[in-house]
């Protein structure tokens, strides 16, 4: 049977807070891989005032959901020429 259902407009392409919480509950977010709560909030603050943030969740530079990537120590803000997550840049 041919499946010609529309590929693009299904709900799985909508990012909601439940999905973000589900991802954050997965084992890869062990505490040793994550930044401290205060650093997490600093990073998120920077995102919230960033022109590259879309819809409160998506970084247009890397396509990441910032609530997820800002948790991880190894991740860096990809803003061209400037890491907006570094404390100096934010202050």
């Amino acid at each position: 049977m041919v499946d010609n259902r529309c590929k693009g407009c299904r709900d799985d392409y909508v990012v909601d807070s439940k999905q973000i919480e589900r991802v954050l509950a997965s084992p890869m977010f062990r505490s040793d891989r994550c930044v401290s709560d205060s650093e997490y909030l600093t990073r998120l603050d920077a995102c919230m005032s960033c022109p590259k943030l879309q819809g409160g969740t998506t970084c247009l530079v890397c396509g990441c959901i910032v609530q997820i990537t800002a948790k991880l120590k190894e991740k860096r803000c990809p803003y061209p020429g400037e890491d907006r997550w570094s404390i100096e840049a934010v202050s």
Partner: protein
Amino acid sequence: MSHVITINADVSHGTINRNIYGHFSEHLGRCIYEGIWVGEDSNIPNTEGIRNDVLEALKKLKIPVLRWPGGCFADEYHWKDGIGPRENRKRMINTHWGGVVENNHFGTHEFMRLCELLECEPYISGNVGSGTVQEMSEWVEYMTFDGVSPMAEWRKENGREKPWKLKYFGVGNENWGCGGNMRPEYYADLYRQYQTYVRNYGENKVYKIACGPNVDDYRWMETVMREAHPFMDAISLHYYTIPGEFWTGKGPATGFTEQEWFTTLKKALHMDELITRHSAIMDQYDPNKRIGLIVDEWGTWYDVEPGTNPGFLYQQNTIRDALVAGLTLNIFHEHNDRVVMANIAQIVNVLQSVILTEGEKMLLTPTYHVFNMYKVHQDAERLDAHISGSEYEMDGEKIPQVSVSASKDAEGKIHVSLCNVSHDSQADVSVALRGLGGPIFKIKAEQLAADSLDAHNTFEAPDALTPSTFSAYEVEEGVLHAKLAPMSVTVFEITAG
């Protein structure tokens, strides 16, 4: 495992249309914005807003044709929103993919400029799903009319005096799905109507492309061909290689199993059956093969990279993708009597891309390297090639282990591209070269190979997987014996005479 290949260098099966090496750029995720367009005021080095690093890398590939603006986006795109001073352009939401704000900064002028810089042909997808006949007709007039008309005047006001040359124009995209959920009878009638007003102005002759089927929708092909074949130059086909199931989990782009490796390559080979069967339907209405088949969306489709917006369709690209690319291009070559163009989806940052970017960083994917190695086949004569050899088997299923294609270019050089799809076995191949017209004079070879199933390039290690000179071969009495590494794509250049 041994494989015997015979190449008859004096038997040609026609030209491999360079457009088989085409690409597709859609306003989706970070393909256009961030991937290609950063704007003139970006601190990423750019030429009139188009990032230089991507431009340079794409120029090397000798891209023949670029499709734009979609995809699903095409049938909700209103071209008049994307012209004139950028600060005045409409902002809209791309509802199909990720709810991204579309500021229309990359429109017709910017796309045409990109094609000029890449020295490639533009292929524009018109809007049938939510646009009007008038809108489509005026777009063609705006781009190609060299006289006095409201559209031509408007183009001039917007800074472009001379019309552009536009050959390839698609009348709708996926009209069986996101382009209007139409039935084929209805689309065929709309196609006949819309294409009537896609006019030829002056010397410009538009090559009209009808929306063809999704995968194995043979009824769609049959109906649209039956009802509309005299009005088209080509018809499209879309097929994505998905290791899992579209709706229930496609499978990851990295960290996959040997079984997923096998399934992916087996599904990539399905392209051959699809082209064969759709072509047989086309033959009933077009036995002389006047109408081309254009595979204007193809490539791998996996689950998005963890933590990224699912609507952006951003995935990594590994040696598995390189093999899908090599196999598929070899299949397109074999069908060069019918397949006149193909456009891999999508050029940067979306699905099986040749380039990935993150801010100012950029990397070339294994698929890029295959396109670069294979570009020698563009416009070359396809040579008669036969292969017999062992099969690659997993859990009782079998596919051929080695795929081959050969061509002769304008200078008489022969290129042979070989894919060894086995994840663990070397392939010993003997290539008998007949009809060369003289002894082999010189051989050069390049190989892209990896030692893990999901070897790939990262922004930290962008050159982890690149092609290297290949030397595991010898020539004995006109027969080339080579040992192809597991998971490898190899291209030989042979000069004779």
